[in-house]
């Protein structure tokens, strides 16, 4: 543990040293500033219309000849592929699961935001825009966020038309709930399974196009490389991908006129997270290594109400809806000695309801990052409960007394059942134990307003890009973004790019294709040949521990520097001592994992470098050196109001290059968040 001050201790805010003038540090080099040249200027509410009007169109008859690859079939990928298929393009899609419907979007519980204002409670596109910019702690682009709020209303219409069974009121109209600390009710939901229902809607639209022959689906295919081919003017364009057929091990290349990555988030770099077992960074990391900028990699969202780890065999963490904090009270024992005791035997006076104490006005309902960090401090202090002392109580005793057990059951029954199933404890009888867990990443491939990366012809959508949430994502906004990108944004902006196609056909034996395939084959063979003594999972777990400890809820210069060293050692350990059993020519799950972990090891390092560079606290990124006197996050807008877009160094072992995209706020005034 680093010796950083905590919320209750004394703090000296560190004035950041003048870093912007540095062009090179121990860990990175500074590149040219970049700009989002695709976004139109003018009044914000007209920008998207202007962009659509300005976009070139593709004649329907020509669309048949144009091919697009979509990697990923989550909300972003499935909706994009279905829509492009409907428009008449030839689409080819890929996912690593055995069915497109299993993408991790399926696990989203809470809901999806939209500025419908059905409650007549003063919501509007502008308010959703405002809340999102502010929620993102002023590290998102205004243009993007405004567009997101605009199309949010169409998303709901679209989903309802597809048969998504949203919750309804007795009158038959759509129901809403409030979510994530905003004051209006704008969240649409389908019990605790909103992501599932939205994804099934997009999946069905996709299957319809597969039946119609416009989309070809490749399940159990993992993208392992991006193919770039220079055009006549020498511009490198994304023209294809290399994939591995996970059943036969065959390495295939697919070429097209454009490539879309919608491959989800990389939270699994922490090993333990609420992401699916297979969630990975491979597609985006391979693209990054081919030149795509990786933006804000250090912005991770840590969710306060997850079920704590129960032992070192733990393979993943389970999220429990945030709504529990509406009625549950969070506490830890005042005395460390009580941590092992049965909580019911701890007297009221010996309990510390620390959120209610420190944040009297918001109490247990402070935002995610604050609640998470507060829990960490209590546990660091030795007051944590449950296995390993990593947990705090979430107590419903008061609520049960006040509302009665049936009311609590009606509201939270399914969550309580889930908790009981996983932990074997009855939450009606004894307080739940909760602990924060990695849940979402705001960082991702850098894209412009058109969702195009800096590689021409390579687009990126959904959680895989960095675009709309700044340093922190509001609850129920990721589903909104995924579907906005896939149904409405990408099909328009991609068309503009495709208007310049079809490009020259790329043969299967084109040197660029052969080279990419060969790189993939060599890498796989290399991993299989090491035959060391460490399992892939043991290395992944170790990486996760390093990341959680030093690049988790609280980061410090000392910790991050240490982490970078440890990760580099671990990279070496991987490439010299990992044990990957079996061969490539079969279903080989160890080999699949090894490839993903190899990429996580590199990404983890970049995350630490990014976190080290950003000597301010904002949203999901909390630097110990940058807090107010009472331990709250302290932004440094004068210095860090930019997107960090990282370029991979051309030379082996070189330092990553930081390009800054300055952020300007014309509509929302930058203010400090306060929840006291």
């Amino acid at each position, binding site marked *: 543990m680093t010796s950083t001050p905590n919320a209750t201790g004394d703090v000296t805010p560190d004035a950041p040293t003048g870093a912007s003038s540095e062009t090179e540090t121990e860990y990175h080099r500074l590149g040219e500033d970049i700009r989002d040249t695709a976004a139109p200027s003018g009044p914000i509410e007209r920008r998207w219309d202007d962009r659509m009007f300005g976009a070139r169109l593709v004649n329907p008859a020509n669309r048949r000849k144009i091919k697009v690859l979509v990697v990923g079939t989550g909300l972003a990928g499935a909706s994009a592929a279905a829509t492009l298929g*409907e428009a008449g393009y030839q689409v080819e899609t890929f996912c690593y699961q055995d069915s497109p419907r*299993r993408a991790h979007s399926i696990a989203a519980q809470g809901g999806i935001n939209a500025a419908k204002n*059905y409650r007549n409670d003063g919501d509007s596109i502008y308010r959703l825009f405002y809340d999102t910019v502010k929620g993102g702690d002023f590290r998102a682009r205004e243009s993007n966020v405004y567009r997101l709020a605009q199309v949010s209303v169409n998303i709901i*219409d679209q989903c309802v*038309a597809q*048969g998504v069974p949203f919750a*309804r009121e007795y009158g038959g109209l759509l129901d809403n709930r409030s979510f994530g600390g905003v004051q209006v009710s704008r969240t649409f939901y389908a019990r605790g399974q909103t992501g599932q229902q939205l994804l099934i809607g997009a999946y069905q639209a996709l*299957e319809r196009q597969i039946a119609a022959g416009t989309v070809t689906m490749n399940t159990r295919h993992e993208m392992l490389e991006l193919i770039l081919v220079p055009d006549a003017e020498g511009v490198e364009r994304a023209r294809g991908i290399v994939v591995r057929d996970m059943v036969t091990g065959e390495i295939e290349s697919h070429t097209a006129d454009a490539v879309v990555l919608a491959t989800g988030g990389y939270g699994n770099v922490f090993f333990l997270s609420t992401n699916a077992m297979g969630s990975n960074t491979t597609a985006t990391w391979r693209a990054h290594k081919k030149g795509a900028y990786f933006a804000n990699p250090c912005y991770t969202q840590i969710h306060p109400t997850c079920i704590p780890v129960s032992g070192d065999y733990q393979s993943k963490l389970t999220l429990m809806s945030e709504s529990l904090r509406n009625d549950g009270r969070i506490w830890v024992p005042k005395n460390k000695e009580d941590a092992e005791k049965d909580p019911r035997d701890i007297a009221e006076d010996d309990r510390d309801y620390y959120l209610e104490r420190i944040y009297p006005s918001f109490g247990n309902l402070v935002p995610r990052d604050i609640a998470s960090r507060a829990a960490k401090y209590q546990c660091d202090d030795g007051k944590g409960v449950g296995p390993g002392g990593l947990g705090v109580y979430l107590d419903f005793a008061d609520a049960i007394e006040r509302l009665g057990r049936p009311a609590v059951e009606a509201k939270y029954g399914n969550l309580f059942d889930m908790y009981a199933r*996983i932990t074997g404890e009855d939450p009606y009888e004894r307080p739940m134990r909760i602990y924060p867990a990695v849940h979402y990443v705001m960082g991702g491939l850098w894209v412009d307003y058109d969702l195009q990366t800096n590689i021409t012809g390579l687009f990126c959508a959904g959680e895989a890009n960095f675009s709309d949430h700044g340093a922190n994502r509001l609850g129920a906004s990721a589903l909104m973004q995924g579907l906005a990108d896939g149904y409405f944004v990408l099909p328009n902006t991609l068309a503009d790019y495709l208007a310049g196609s079809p490009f020259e056909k790329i043969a299967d034996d084109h040197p660029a294709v052969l080279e990419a395939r060969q790189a993939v084959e060599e890498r796989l063979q290399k991993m299989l040949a090491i035959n060391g003594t460490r399992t892939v999972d043991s290395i992944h777990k170790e990486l996760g521990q390093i990341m959680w400890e030093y690049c988790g809820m609280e980061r410090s210069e000392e910790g991050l520097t240490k982490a970078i060293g440890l990760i580099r050692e671990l990279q070496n350990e991987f490439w010299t001592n990992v044990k990957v059993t079996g061969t490539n020519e*079969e279903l080989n799950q160890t080999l699949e994992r090894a490839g993903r972990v190899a990429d996580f090891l590199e990404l983890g390092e970049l995350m630490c470098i990014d976190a080290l560079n950003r000597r301010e606290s904002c949203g999901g990124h909390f630097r110990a050196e940058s807090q107010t006197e009472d331990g709250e996050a302290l932004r440094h807008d004068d210095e860090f109001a930019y997107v960090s877009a990282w370029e991979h160094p051309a030379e082996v072992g070189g330092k990553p290059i930081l390009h800054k995209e300055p952020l300007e706020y014309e509509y929302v005034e930058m203010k400090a968040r306060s929840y006291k």
Partner: protein
Amino acid sequence: MKITVNVWRQQDAESKGSMVPYVLDEVSEHMSFLEMLDVLNEQLTLEGNDPVAFDSDCREGICGTCGVVINGIPHGPEVTTTCQLHMRTFKDGDVIDIEPWRAGSFPVIKDLVVDRGAFDRIIQAGGYISAPTGSAVEANNIPVPKADADHAFEAATCISCGACVAACPNGSAMLFTAAKITHLGLLPQGQPERDSRVLGMVEQHDAEGFGGCTNIGECTAACPKGIPLDTISRLNRDLLGALSRQTIG
């Protein structure tokens, strides 16, 4: 706990498989069933043996990727997914049989991993509402009675895991098919394609080689999402209606 597992090992689709016993000395009751298999795999890998292939992704009971037959019951003795089953359901010294889903239309790929692509093809045959992007009307223009919406939701919670097929003595996928028919058939938006949907999906179901349903009911008992049996009757009603309309004109 000490647990012995008998696991179906099969190198690939063509090979002949067999049950192979493994002993695990230290199983915690808090482990999930799949974490127990993870531990087994770490052990096998370190011994230089091929780890057991099995599918899982979300490990939250929602994606439908996981699923093995445990002691003869799909997803094991509790009504939940394999990933949500915990070892506290078992006792020290237990011998647990673990096999893949078995059905002609779910060929084994390796060990406990099977190919469920047939499900996607059944959906392709009509398991959707045609609503091209951009064509939608304002969402609240068509009210849906809450009871219908709730029922549709209940049917829509099918996670496409395939346990129903694995449990059905006839290898029928009728519960899966019926869940989709019910979900879309209960909504006003689903009406225009109601006949073509049921005809297409049932035809594809049969073409995929799934068995015929004789109303045995094992499927609902094994279904982790409790998809109710009356969905099958609803499918039959729709089918009879569609067939009669088709023959009469």
